[in-house]
């Protein structure tokens, strides 16, 4: 999905449970999510901590959207 949206010229960031697959496919902007079962959350945390984590992940993802990328940018932490 990400590549087709990019092909249409729309800046995209992928928060991925499996960033390596996305890397191989050639998605431009990739951020590793927390886990396959919870890309933007962590059930082991309290709700407050989880919201803080979600915020960190989301803000990092937004940062990728505003970052100039020549070929590919894969970020593994937030």
């Amino acid at each position: 999905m990400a590549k087709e949206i990019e092909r249409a010229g729309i800046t995209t960031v992928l928060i991925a449970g499996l960033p390596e697959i996305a890397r191989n496919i050639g998605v431009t902007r990739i951020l590793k999510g927390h886990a396959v079962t919870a890309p933007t959350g962590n059930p082991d945390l309290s709700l407050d901590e989880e919201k803080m984590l979600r915020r960190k992940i989301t803000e990092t993802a937004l940062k990728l959207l505003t970052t100039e990328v020549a070929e590919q940018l894969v970020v593994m932490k937030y």
Partner: protein
Amino acid sequence: MKEKVKAVHYINQFFAGLGGEDKAEMGLQARDGAAGPGVGLEKSSAGQLEIVKTIICGDNFFQSHREEVLAKIAKLVREASPDVFIAGPAFNAGRYGIACREAAEYVRAQSGIPTVTAMFRENPALGVRPFNTYVLPTEDSVLGMGRILPELARFACRLGAGESIGEAEQEGYFPRGFRYNVALRETAAARAVVMLKEKLGGKILTEIPLPAADKVTPPSPVADLAKATVVLATDGGLVPKGNPDRLESAYATKWFRYSMAGLSALEASRWESIHGGCDVTFINQDPHRLLPLDTMRSLVAEGKVGRLDDYFYTTTGNGTTIANAVRIGKEIAAKIKESGANAVMLTST
């Protein structure tokens, strides 16, 4: 091939009969003898193949503890001293396919023991060549188990007996991406003339197939987030509870968009994930673990993001055929472009 070929076999939690997605976090286990499809491998080898050890690991655990798991597998293989290492078959299971390939390549590199695995041609694990393992093609689901087991057993026996394996085209395994020098009778000039004649007749021959490079021009960064409209999208199969539009849980052919207008949060009572390829328990407890609506609402309220589009786009990324995935992607892209949004945040399980 009179003596038995000794093998170590790697499978995941599901094929070991220990559970499905709920057991994907389980750690590594080892058993003497064959288990799961390994029993079938032995049976279809007419007594030639003996699986001395079966290594079982949860697909998620493999991903999150890769180094530890690979080291343990290498150790178990060293101790068992087999003639061949077999992994899978993984069919179209992405995480399992990756685990099979990585385990096989690691064992090969560490011990020199020949390795073979098997999976469907669209398995994401086949993404990048070269493979440092043999990979046999399978159907896209376990319905192909009956066909692959005797082939996998036969190939493993040949490897274990030290037989040399021919070219991919002849033998039927996926080309590994290695190029070997081969002496040919005809000169390059003679071969080129043959190829030119064929081309004039409309048939394209090539000695070096060019890889299908599908590159996308990286879109420019968003200039000012505070003025931008961001769209949320997911391939985690998030739908209104009850899945009214019947989005498929696997092999999706459809996509939908649903309105979040007026919602400050995604309540668990109103939304669910129908993704059939992973455990959706955590997402169903709190859909924000897949689609961060709550965070995006805050960011818009704080002025950090200009606007969040009312709609989120959804499909299921689980064994989607490449053809359908491209079509779905193009259709979603067209709709989003029509809406005039500047950027997309896509979350994926």
